């Protein structure tokens, strides 16, 4: 099984955008090289034939962990908003939002 194509500078710029990170041109070059070498190392995993192997997302097999529908104390609003960078009218204030949620 062939591994995926090698990571490019454009890929790094794209994921930085998705992750809300701004990279300088120099950082883009540096990170592209570093991340590509990590992914090259991971080629041993990417190229394995693991068809039919079940993925393990949880190491311990536990199911149906539930809580009763009973109210628990909430946080004090003053304490919550006291942590916020900007507050108005008991709400968290953010600068202009340019679009709807994706």
């Amino acid at each position, binding site marked *: 099984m062939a591994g995926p194509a090698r990571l490019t500078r454009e890929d790094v710029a794209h994921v930085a955008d998705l992750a809300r990170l701004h990279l300088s041109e120099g950082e883009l070059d540096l990170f592209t090289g570093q991340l590509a070498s990590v992914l090259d190392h991971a080629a041993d995993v990417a190229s394995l034939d693991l068809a039919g192997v079940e993925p393990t997302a949880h190491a311990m097999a536990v199911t149906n962990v539930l*809580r009763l529908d009973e109210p*628990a104390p909430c946080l004090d609003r003053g304490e919550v908003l006291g942590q916020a960078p900007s507050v108005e009218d008991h709400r968290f204030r953010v600068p202009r939002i340019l679009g709807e949620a*994706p």
Partner: protein
Amino acid sequence: MTSGWQMVIGLEVHCELKTATKLFCGCPNVFGDEPNTNVCPNCLGLPGSLPVLNQQAVELAMAIGTALHCEIKPSTFHRKNYFYPDQAKDYQISQYDEPLNVNGHLDLPDGFRVGIERAHMEEDTGKTSHAGASGRIHGADYSLVDYNRSGVPLVEIVSDPDMRTADQARAYVTELRAILVASGASDGKMEEGSMRVDANVSVRTAADAPFGTRCEIKNLNSVRSLGRAIEYEAQRQIALIESGEAVVQQTRHWDEGAGRTEALRSKEDAYDYRYFLEPDLVPLVPDAEWIRAVGDTLGMMPAERRARLVGLLEESGGATDAQRDQITTVVDLGLDDLVVEAVAGGVGSGLALARTANEAATDADAARALDPKSYLELLMLEAGGLLSATQAKAVLAELFVRGGGDPAAIARDKGFEAMSEDSLAATVAVAVDGHPDEWGRYCAGDDKLAGFFTGLVMKATKGQANGKAVAAELARLRG
């Protein structure tokens, strides 16, 4: 619909579950509280917080699945990753490729069956308000976020693209809403946003043609706007195609004021949500016993409730079209038990249905809270001629205010003591004696004058006389 074209409609309905607490934390699930008072580390997305699944939310979701005839399956939660200020963790916990409920259906009142692809659980976002002249996101100077709604449990019900008219879409949402209310899962209040509808609409030229390119319409806040938006969108797509252009797959916003849809984003901008299994939650695996136990708690669904009322009208020659509408109203409002109990207590089914659809329905919340026995007694007083329709209405209003009580006692308090037959006869006799000319014309066959005499009696008794009883006495005197 423009002839030669057919619409294809699928609906995605989000409903908030009627739990005491949120989906993954113990904060109250309440609408309308002071901003940022119902919050904790989990629903604020504080570092180190962890989600724990609410059992009641799971059982209400299973109840919805059962009511929609779904298979209830082992399921998992994923993270849907996207940045937005109302999303406290900047990801939403949602069921993705292994939803709780799949492959169900919903039958519309006319018998048309709409397939249900899935009904899955997810958490709601916080609420953003926009500061600035417009109050809308565009042109706002800045925005404010309240996380009280963050983490409120939702079930998203996704239909198959089975509907072909806006009427069917409207009927689907109305019926689904009734099912959600009847199952106790949701209060179905579109106006408070506890039920939100998105419509996928496409058009095609023939019923066996492949589906056209669809657009998803958001911001449909009522059944009425749903219908308008679908009609508008279908016409827009037809006009595009007929002018030789292609429909572009888009998400569109319904502008209620302007009566049109506007493009929000196209499919090329499709966001990469990077779904992956939520490591902080474990799989949900309902066994047969649990599913059965939830099913056992489920009450009668609206279709069955309507059939029950239609059955009650069989003796009186079957339900008329008007009565079918009354039945729909009564069932949608959850008042059908009042009708059934009244009929069981001896009230005629026509009267019980009409009074419930017209009078009790004016304050459905209060009517649902009423002791059915009080309601039965009230209808019996009216049926027996001891209260006029007007008086009965006044007593019902008082029952609502008091949250129940003895209708006869309330009638007495209001001075609605029904007149004895003797004193009624005496009052009628006084009226007749005082107007010999009119009495003569009445006796000669001028029936309109019955109204004149009834009016006199009503005036004399300050409206307490029963109109039917007065008419009967007049007829007796005329011989």
